């Protein structure tokens, strides 16, 4: 799935926002998205020849496209210092 999203950015639409670091080692855990309503890592989810619904994580604040705010609150620029997550949009 992550390969497909990267392919889209290179060949079709570079404005597509996705979040990932380690590409496919499943080490950084940054590429979490929702596929067909289930929370998955894009890097380990296999693309199938069906229609698949890709959405940002439902319980996190949406930033853009598939990117949500997953940084710990005290590690953000506008640190909140609490562990409370804002509700999803």
């Amino acid at each position: 799935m992550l390969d497909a999203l990267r392919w889209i950015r290179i060949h079709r639409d570079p404005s597509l926002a996705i979040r990932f670091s380690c590409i496919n080692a499943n080490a950084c855990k940054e590429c979490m998205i929702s596929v067909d309503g289930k929370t998955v890592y894009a890097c380990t989810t296999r693309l199938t020849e069906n229609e698949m619904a890709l959405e940002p994580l439902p319980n996190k604040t949406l930033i853009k496209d598939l990117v949500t705010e997953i940084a710990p609150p005290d590690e953000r620029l506008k640190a909140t210092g609490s562990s409370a997550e804002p509700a999803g949009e």
Partner: protein
Amino acid sequence: MQTDVLIVGAGAAGMYAAISAARAGSQVMLVDRSLIGRGGATVMAQMTVAAALGEEAPDHWEHHLADTLAAGRGLCDPALARLLCEDAPECIREMDRWGVGWARNTKHIRQVQAPGHDRPRCVYVDFVNTGPAVSKTLRAQLNRIPEIRRIGELVVTDLAVQDGICVGAHAVHVISGELLSLHAKATIIATGGLTRLYQRNSASINMGGDGYALALRAGAELVDMEFVQFFPIGHLAPRLVGMDPIMWDPFRYKLGGKLLNAEMQEFLNEDGRYVSVRDQATHAILAEVAAGRGTPHGGAWLSFRHCSEAELRLAFGPIIDRLAENGIDLTRQAIEVAPIAHYHMGGIRADTDMQTSVPHLFAAGEAVGGASGANRLSGNAITEAFTFGRRAGLRAAALAAKTAIPSIRQESETGPSSVPVSRPNPAAEIARLQQVMNEHVGPLRTRSGLERALEQITELGPECGTLPAPRAGLDPEWLDLHDLRNMRLVAECIVRAALAREESRGAHQRQDCPGTSERWQNHQRVRLASDGVRLER
């Protein structure tokens, strides 16, 4: 925003530097373009960490140093290599006290013998979990220190230099597009290496050579830029997701394994042992492929078919299930491996205080060049991150203690300009650059190939193209433009240094200049002059 010590990059080197600077009394700001402790190379390290602990067999850092220098093919900076080896045991024991969980037997920390080491010297965390455990441990330490302000999703676009002194950095908050000035008494670059420049790499998306580009534009010198390490047995086929492509290293040091060509012959005289150092193994595999004895996807076979299911499970537990999910059964099939861009021996020139050639600018970890010469000994990368990070943090804190907080003058602004730049898809241009580097600037090089690469790199625009300001909000195209600007500059440094070095040594093999030459027993330094990238010997 202001701080005593600004650290750019939150892998092991940056995190260790932050802890060490804070312990020495500094206020620290640790920033990363990704999430803290997640995005660099450290979290991906699935292999070993070398230190002369003497737990498995009597050892001394001088033996570790001798192996490091031998692997470096005569080009290690001996002072940096010594620092790495001498301070390693202390850092490893400190990590142990912090609960990293180095693998143990009943009595002591386990140490395995990796290629190039004269005795068992390499510690690790089971199962194939060294990097994640190291990251988690350092994160836990960071979180306990109130003097460290951690900020993720912040990309440093340029360092701020005033009157020749580094006074902090210009940054962009990736999520909002907000431009920021970070004022610092001392700054440490800990951004890791440049393996993202290659199409086939074992790095994270963040390893595009940012720190080298920042240092160059700030006036600092780089060194040994032609020496890019390829890890010989990176995973090639069948498709494997959810694992780092360098995962076969721990398999080999635990289980041996046979590296075979298409005729099912061992070609490295290893006899099932894991003994060939990286440059040697890389060149041997590529030579087999060139001679028509490569595997279907253009690499070598790696076989563990001599191992039983029980042996595999004992050594690697849940990893065997993860392989099964990918349809891989090592008792029945060999897998294909091939060299993959893995680490950069070159980097920012620094002394043993980790001070660069620009006052108040330090470097740490893989960002620093020189300790590994022309070929890095396995197990020395995380060690380098720990030891150099710790030293950089200490020295930056000491300098900050006697420095007033600088103010960045507006006329010295070198942050992103507001000039709009229109260009084709930058994500596609990055992919093109990666292809060029893979094709012409890999482990085997020729003058004509390097010249072709230089032409194609130059077509990407000037070495210091203007970076436009991002649009408000998250702007992925801007981030690609930022990365392309750095990658293009750093790629040129590698190619120019590789063109000039008319010999073959370690990771740099010129097919048109075979053999190591006495004349080239020296370093090439790179700096950015007004007329472009300048090379000096």
